[in-house]
């Protein structure tokens, strides 16, 4: 019984690999087409300055999307990242203003809150075995609720020092927005983790079959814990960047970001059922959505069109994926 099954399973990686690349080439073509169209239709779209603005606006969602790629590869989901961003931003603001901590220490508080939130998700998902959708739906309310309760619903933390504001609003030599290197570093880290380490292979294996992964000797609970803690850590880091970019931290910071991030991941070709997907796909998905928003704005199209087209693209992408999968199975 075991031998034929193994033989049947053997070609699978090559097949999924090729399907994955098709998706990413199509996405790249989309990005090129968007760029070409908006360069023609938009004013000041095809400039280095605007490229910087697109990158700057994408960093927070990008950080969340990178971490979510690993989470979704395990077949899980994390709906709490936007709420956790809000909570981390608010507590960071409070540490700086109310406790008078230096901004570096306050930023560490923000990241620490993110890690703590991730640990809670990890414990419930990996240790108690509660479905991730439910756990993170609960923490989605919990984190945002604590942020609302803590600030009384109204308090807004501002007057962050110039050093932090530089991270969010300044430019490095060469015109690169100051926060972009953070996203690049995170992208390299997640790409190596997912595509070049045994941990990444384990993460995919869990997505294909948790039971099979367990029998293959993969420490399933520990791998699951890792991806949820990383997800929390990225939410904390994104909170720091958010506060730096906008110069304020309110309880509603990052509302709805989880949906943008999930959109980038799924548009990037990662299967919502886990196992299949890539970090570079997510980055392409992120760029496709960011260009759409920015380009429509610069070509005087209604802002709502960005959301509508993103939704249509999302359904088109999974529909196409489905067709490719069916054809390769036939």
């Amino acid at each position: 019984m075991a031998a034929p099954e193994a033989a049947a399973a053997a070609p699978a990686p090559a097949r999924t690999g090729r399907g994955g690349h098709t998706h990413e080439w199509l996405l790249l073509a989309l990005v090129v087409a968007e760029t070409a169209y908006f360069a023609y239709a938009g004013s000041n779209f095809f400039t280095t300055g605007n490229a910087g603005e697109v990158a700057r606006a994408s960093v927070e969602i990008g950080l969340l999307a990178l971490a979510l790629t690993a989470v979704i590869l395990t077949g899980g989901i994390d709906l709490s990242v936007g709420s956790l961003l809000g909570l981390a931003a608010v507590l960071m603001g409070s540490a700086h203003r109310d406790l008078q901590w230096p901004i570096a220490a306050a930023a560490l508080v923000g990241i620490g809150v993110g890690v703590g939130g991730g640990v809670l998700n990890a414990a419930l998902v990996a240790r108690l075995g509660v479905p991730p959708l439910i756990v993170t739906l609960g923490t989605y309310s919990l984190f945002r609720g604590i942020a609302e309760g803590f600030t009384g619903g109204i308090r807004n933390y501002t007057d962050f020092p110039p050093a932090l504001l530089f991270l969010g609003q300044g430019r490095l030599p060469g015109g690169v927005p100051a926060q972009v290197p953070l996203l690049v570093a995170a992208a390299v880290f997640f790409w190596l983790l997912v595509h070049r380490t045994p941990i990444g292979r384990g993460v995919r294996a869990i997505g294909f079959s948790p039971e099979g992964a367990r029998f293959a000797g993969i420490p399933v609970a520990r791998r699951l814990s890792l991806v949820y803690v990383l997800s929390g850590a990225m939410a904390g880091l994104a909170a720091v960047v958010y506060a730096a970019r906008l110069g304020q931290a309110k309880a509603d910071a990052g509302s709805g970001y989880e949906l943008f991030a999930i959109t980038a991941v799924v548009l990037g070709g990662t299967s919502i059922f886990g196992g299949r997907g890539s970090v570079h796909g997510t980055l392409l998905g992120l760029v496709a959505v960011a260009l759409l928003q920015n380009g429509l704005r610069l070509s005087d199209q209604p802002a709502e069109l960005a959301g509508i087209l993103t939704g249509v693209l999302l359904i088109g992408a999974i529909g196409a994926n489905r067709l490719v999968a069916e054809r390769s199975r036939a």
Partner: protein
Amino acid sequence: MTPAAGRYRRELGVAGALVLLLGLLTVIAPAFFGAANLRDLLVANAPVLVAAVGMTLVILARQIDISIGSQFAICGVAAGLLAKTGLPMPLVAAGAVAAGAALGAINGALVAGLGLPAIVVTLATMVVLREGLRWRTEGVWIQDLPERFQWFGLGQAGGRVAIVAAAIVVFAAFAWGLRRLAAGRAVYAAGSDPEAARLVGIHPRRVVFATFVFMGALTGLAAVLTAIQFIDVQTSAGTGLEMKVIAAVVVGGVAISGGRGTLVGTLLGVTLLGTIGPALTFLGTQAYWERALQGAVILLAVSTDALPSLVRRRRGRA
């Protein structure tokens, strides 16, 4: 534990939590039980219950719908616009319900027809519908509604009774149908094992399609029951409704993996989560903590479910 008590453990647990909360209120803040407060509580939660009935069907069929907040907004606007054309109120309500059913059918066709994952499909339709509505209305509220729109033209007292009665009728009809009708059992069958359901002659895809249509229709009804409480229809209504409703259903013990749960559980979930906010005010805490407490209740409810199996696993390993 008797088999019945074991099967309804979650329902009993949530009922226990509710009794505890109400007991606490009796002792500390008996004013909570004032007629006006209870009435407001019922009226505010009636539309939530109607939407939660639909969500129970969808989750029982092993699906999810996160687009209902956007559907809710569109159906409310549709009701307002229909009322302004001079249609009688029953037709206005029917129109909004039909609009909801049509939106649900879009989700159903994409999920059941094309076999796409429900969470991604409804994530996409959530954004498309919300942004589409904002594009068309430009965020302007529907105003100058005819006199008979608010409270169905029954006056405030009569309108409130009608809202709660509508929710009770919907709840009772679906609770009965899910238990007693073949179609109701088919929802459980398709959700617990689609392949087995197919072998006994049920069409799981048709069942899934139907649950999305019901979800949309009930969202449309919930939108009408909410819209008539106000003078204008807000175009931004329903934001976050999906999370609220899914939370109530899950707290009530409906398994996200499909096929397990009851509408009585959903009723208890809606009641518990709906009581927490007002209870906080009466207990002298800031209402801002409402969402945190709701989140904590969700986590507590689902972890108590998982604990027994965890203990068993630990023992098995030792």
